[in-house]
């Protein structure tokens, strides 16, 4: 965190000053470790074993927060009897189909006949296979029937007992064996965690892509969630699980998504079901309980914001104008489609996939096979120049004359040159004002897309009479789109303030709305993103508020604005006990004021303020009214924190340790080496390596993990061109231990070449005691740290770490595994030209790599074609760009 979030880290230092104990868990000793009270080195890719060990410690020792667990989590809920655990099936859950899971056996007992499941069945009927049913989040799974519970937590199939059994083998010995963490240190962490949780104290977890960039990444977060729920650390001040996002406003770009399968505010993008109506869409996506019950209000307001007066009740508010998903349109699939000639044009805005995305060679192959490519960036990044100086040109694989892609490079304005907001990891919107005018041809993204839209609209309008009826119908969503932002200045810059106001939403009279509870499904309200409703309440840009800390309460509600409803801690109902009183004076946050008959406290209560703690819903209640007064997790279908996730995940209801896609070690926990549901793309440019006990695994004996430095930013597009940053970290390097240096004859500051089945890169050697060999599974394991900031352009240049990585994805969110891989390393620079290919071919041959390597099953009878494009599962792919 000190490395990639130095500014946010000031609060960790502040906490430390006040006596907080800082524990840092990381394969590498980083600047964060230097500041921590305890540093816990572990093997990259083994975190679930570590977290599982902590969960087991809490459960076995009875250290969980009993009242919290009993009242606020689904510990008491009984799971369907058809459920079987990985502990029973040697590493897979019930419902495994060979490439993915049929999730129905994971449901709650009694909730299976739940109409919510019926809705799912409806999806299944439409789309054929359960794995097509992408639940973007747990919130979607709705059910009307109440599942069976056992408040005594003793029923053998209640979540609590399942949890206990599932994690029983995650002992300190196992943690030592799998993670390389000695038992003494493990106990130190476990005891600190327990001692700092409960009524009087809370513990927070902060993580970044070290937890998410794995083929089982979502389950890493699930494991932390289970631990925090057991300890009562969710919804309480000083608690939580904090995602440290990869760069400014990445949170904003999921709230108002740049993801293909989401609409603003986490509304799912509709699928291409024939004649899908708004009613059907709402019926299949609304929840019966909680705030997703009002999804129709959100969708209609969004359609009204986009198509204004064209959207009426009669025409389903132009629901038909929304695009429909026909399959996977994620970044990795899109690139494969480029290589296969199915994608002709590509916009790359503020991203550098030519060096910044896993298997960068594959990315460039796609770029080289386009008709046109638009790159908007601050600097002349590699994605705009791959055709001229990419590694394939350097190695003689291809030449500029053979690449037909027409590249348009458009210089972009930096954040200091435009108005707008950043949404940070706390869901807080903070406005930034333009400090200087952009130079020359530099323009803001807002300017670019606004004027591009104007031009497309006018071109379509001008050709109206040349177009046939079908084409005209296709043009309508664009022609009817609300596109009326006021502009200012010589450049006709659209007003970012007006855009924020549109996102906030307006009522029938055109006044800014104050809260998403005011949204209506009758077409009288408009809102570009329902969760942002209120940021412009009272016609005030609340994101621009900068009331100094000393002039307001410690929660600082007057600084910026947090969605939803300027609430600073989500689910903060859990900060009070079931009766509504604070768990302790020290940790009081929101509470029920019995005299006033309302919820009050330091923050905006995350509960209907007038709903008493003893509220019991009527049988026919719907939406938020269907939640009890004790249900804190108001977006969940059952209002509870999920220790066990009966739906929403594609690789199991509980986290289980699997080895990374490529690992030198065998999975000794069970026979299933890797996450059986992960997504693979067996392609010539994306060969996988053997792992564990498979023959050839010894060719890649070292674990590597990619990382970021404070001095640079992501793939370097914003830092390698800046002299004052370039000089601080002026060369690509790899970090390794003195012991590995001896083993491989590597010299400090000399060159080393790192090799995987995809590529070989070179870097200077930094020998450092900060990297230490670990004992894992009975052998000494060396880890190598590889920063991924470099590429061929800019003031400091070097090879890109992404040349090494494969594309193997987490099945739920489809993120690639950048944080744990296997490689070989040797002294000297990498060869050039054909010699480089020869080197990689030699390694592939030595490891016996074929098109089937890295898969779990023996090759299917007809196998995949050598240039096959089919992933072993088919599903939507989102994310995958840089670090998010």
């Amino acid at each position, binding site marked *: 965190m000190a490395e990639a979030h130095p500014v946010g880290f000031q609060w960790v230092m502040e906490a*430390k000053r006040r006596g907080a104990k800082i524990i840092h868990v990381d394969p590498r000793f980083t600047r964060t470790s230097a500041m921590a009270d305890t540093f816990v080195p572990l093997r990259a890719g083994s975190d679930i074993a570590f977290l599982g060990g902590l969960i087991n410690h809490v459960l076995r020792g009875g250290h969980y927060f009993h009242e919290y667990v009993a009242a606020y989590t689904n510990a008491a809920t009984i799971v369907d009897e058809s459920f079987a655990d990985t502990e029973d099936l040697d590493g897979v859950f019930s419902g495994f189909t060979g490439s993915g899971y049929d999730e129905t056996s994971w449901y709650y007992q009694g909730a299976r006949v739940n109409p919510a499941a019926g809705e799912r069945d409806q999806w299944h009927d439409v789309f054929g296979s359960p794995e097509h049913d992408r639940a973007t989040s747990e919130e979607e799974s709705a059910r009307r029937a109440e599942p069976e519970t056992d408040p005594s937590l003793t029923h053998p199939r209640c979540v609590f007992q399942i949890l206990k059994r599932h994690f029983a083998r995650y002992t300190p010995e196992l943690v030592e064996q799998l993670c390389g963490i000695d038992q003494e240190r493990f106990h130190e962490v476990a005891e600190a965690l327990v001692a700092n949780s409960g009524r009087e104290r809370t513990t927070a977890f902060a993580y970044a892509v070290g937890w998410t960039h794995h083929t089982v990444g979502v389950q890493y977060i699930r494991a932390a969630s289970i631990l925090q729920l057991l300890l009562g650390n969710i919804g309480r001040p000083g608690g939580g699980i904090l995602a440290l996002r990869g760069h400014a406003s990445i949170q904003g770009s999921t709230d108002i998504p740049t993801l293909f399968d989401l609409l603003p505010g986490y509304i799912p993008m509709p699928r291409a079901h024939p004649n899908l109506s708004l009613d059907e869409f709402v019926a299949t996506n609304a929840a019966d309980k909680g705030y997703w019950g009002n999804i129709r209000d959100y969708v209609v307001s969004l359609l009204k914001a986009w198509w204004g007066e064209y959207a009426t009740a009669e025409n389903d508010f132009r629901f038909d104008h929304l695009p429909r998903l026909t399959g996977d349109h994620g970044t990795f699939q899109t690139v494969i489609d480029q290589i296969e000639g199915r994608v002709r044009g590509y916009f790359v805005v503020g991203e550098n996939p030519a060096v910044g995305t896993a298997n960068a060679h594959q990315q460039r192959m796609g770029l080289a096979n386009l008709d046109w490519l638009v790159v908007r960036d601050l600097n002349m990044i590699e994605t705009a120049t791959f055709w001229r100086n990419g590694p394939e040109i350097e190695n003689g694989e291809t030449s500029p004359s053979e690449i037909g892609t027409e590249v348009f490079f458009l210089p972009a304005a930096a954040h200091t040159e435009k108005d707008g907001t950043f949404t940070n990891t706390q869901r807080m919107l903070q406005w930034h004002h333009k400090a200087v005018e952009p130079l020359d041809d530099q323009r803001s993204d807002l300017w670019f897309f606004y004027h591009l839209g104007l031009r497309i609209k006018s071109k379509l309008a001008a050709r109206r009479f040349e177009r046939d009826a079908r084409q005209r119908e296709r043009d309508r969503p664009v022609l009817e789109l609300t596109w009326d932002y006021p502009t200012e200045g010589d450049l006709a810059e659209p007003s970012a303030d007006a855009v924020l106001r549109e996102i906030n939403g307006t009522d029938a009279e055109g006044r800014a709305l104050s809260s998403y509870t005011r949204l209506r499904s009758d077409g009288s309200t408009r809102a570009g993103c329902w969760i942002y409703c209120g940021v412009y309440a009272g016609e005030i840009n609340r994101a621009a508020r900068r009331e100094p800390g000393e002039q307001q309460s410690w929660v600082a509600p007057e600084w910026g604005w947090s969605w939803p409803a300027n609430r600073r801690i989500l689910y903060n109902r859990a900060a009070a006990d079931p009766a509504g009183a604070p768990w302790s004076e020290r940790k009081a946050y929101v509470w029920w004021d019995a005299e006033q008959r309302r919820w009050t406290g330091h923050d905006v209560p995350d509960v209907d303020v007038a709903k008493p703690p003893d509220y019991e819903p009527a049988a026919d209640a719907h939406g938020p009214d269907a939640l009890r007064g004790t249900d804190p997790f108001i977006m969940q279908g059952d209002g509870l924190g999920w220790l066990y996730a009966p739906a929403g995940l594609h690789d199991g209801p509980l986290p289980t340790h699997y080895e990374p896609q490529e690992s030198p070690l065998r999975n000794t926990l069970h026979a299933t080496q890797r996450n059986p549901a992960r997504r693979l793309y067996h392609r010539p440019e994306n060969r996988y390596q053997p792992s564990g006990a498979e023959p050839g695994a010894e060719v890649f004996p070292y674990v590597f993990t990619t990382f970021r430095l*404070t001095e640079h930013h992501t793939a370097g597009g914003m830092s390698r061109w800046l002299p004052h940053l370039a*000089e*601080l970290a002026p*060369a690509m390097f790899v970090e390794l231990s003195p012991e590995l240096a001896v083993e491989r004859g590597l010299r400090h500051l000399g060159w080393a070449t790192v090799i995987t089945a995809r590529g070989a890169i070179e870097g200077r050697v930094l*020998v450092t005691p900060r990297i230490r060999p670990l004992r894992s599974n009975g052998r000494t394991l060396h880890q190598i740290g590889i920063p991924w900031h470099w590429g061929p352009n800019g003031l400091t240049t070097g090879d890109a770490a992404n040349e090494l990585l494969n594309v193997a994805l987490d099945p739920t969110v489809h993120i690639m595994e950048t944080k744990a891989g296997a490689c070989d390393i040797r002294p000297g620079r990498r060869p050039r030209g054909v010699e480089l290919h020869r080197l990689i071919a030699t390694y592939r041959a030595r490891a016996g790599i074929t098109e089937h390597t890295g898969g779990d099953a023996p090759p299917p009878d007809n196998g995949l074609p050598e240039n096959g494009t089919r992933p072993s599962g088919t599903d939507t792919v989102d994310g995958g760009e840089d670090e998010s």
Partner: protein
Amino acid sequence: MSPDRPSEHPLFELERSMRTGEHARETAPEPAVGSSNGNRLSGPLADPSAEAGYSEQHPDRMGFFTDTSVCIGCKACEVACKEWNLLEEDGLELTGMSYDNTTDLGATTWRHVAFVEQRIDLSTRARVDIGMPGMGPPETATEEVAGSEVRWLMSSDVCKHCTHAACLDVCPTGALIRSEYGTVVVQDDVCNGCGYCVPACPYGVIDIHPENGGAFKCTLCQDRLGSGMTPACATACPTESIQYGPLDQLRERAEQRLEQLHEQGITEARLYGQDPTDGVGGDGAFFLLLDEPEVYGLPPDPVVTTRDLPAMACYALAAAATAAVTIASCFLGGRR
């Protein structure tokens, strides 16, 4: 020093203070001017600005307290300094000195973050600096390594703005001056690049710019102080490792912090450069360190070279006289 006090001749003030007995209270902590050896070249000095001739209304002496125990090595100070002071990039070379690729302070680097990697023996708590690793077996056997921990020290270095600044003393042109804030500043339009300040500085801070020939160093952002702004580095520092303020307050704060760390068992914490009785009369920019100063590239006990100037002048005069007498004696006797 008290900026609110009405302006009056120091003699009147002295007279009044003797009358009212305020004297003891106001100047008690430090002798006013000069030192035991009777010159003004070393020793404690309460108010360098007044000594330099500023009137009573001059502002408080300002400085930095750099608390390295909370430095996270982000180098934001280096970048902010270079951005504000328009200092150019000065080399794209990987040094291999941990994450320090800046190496030292100089004409175009006025803040420098040092990185020190150490191995600490858990049984003895002895520290082993790693220095520049080479190839070959690690210096300690594996078993020993297992019983050790890694410590990574980071520290942002800067010009010390000494109470007795050798650079200022030896500058022949008067380009180096004491500012009204008690800091030491180079006047670029006066400096003729003689380079005398460079070896005079006991901390190795000031240097000659290789291209334009002038001497440069930290100005404590003199051009920001006038408008009430904080120096760029302290503004950028996310963890308040670099604290800026009136030196008196900073010294107090530093003592408190030291006490706090000692209470927490971090006995190796120590202050560096805060003592007005040290060889340079105390630094305007001082530090809290977690190891010996030399580990961070700081001199353990620097002394302003001009402390010895009177003595040196005597030696030189004696030697000059010796030369004259020697020559004269050669002219005695006959014309051989």
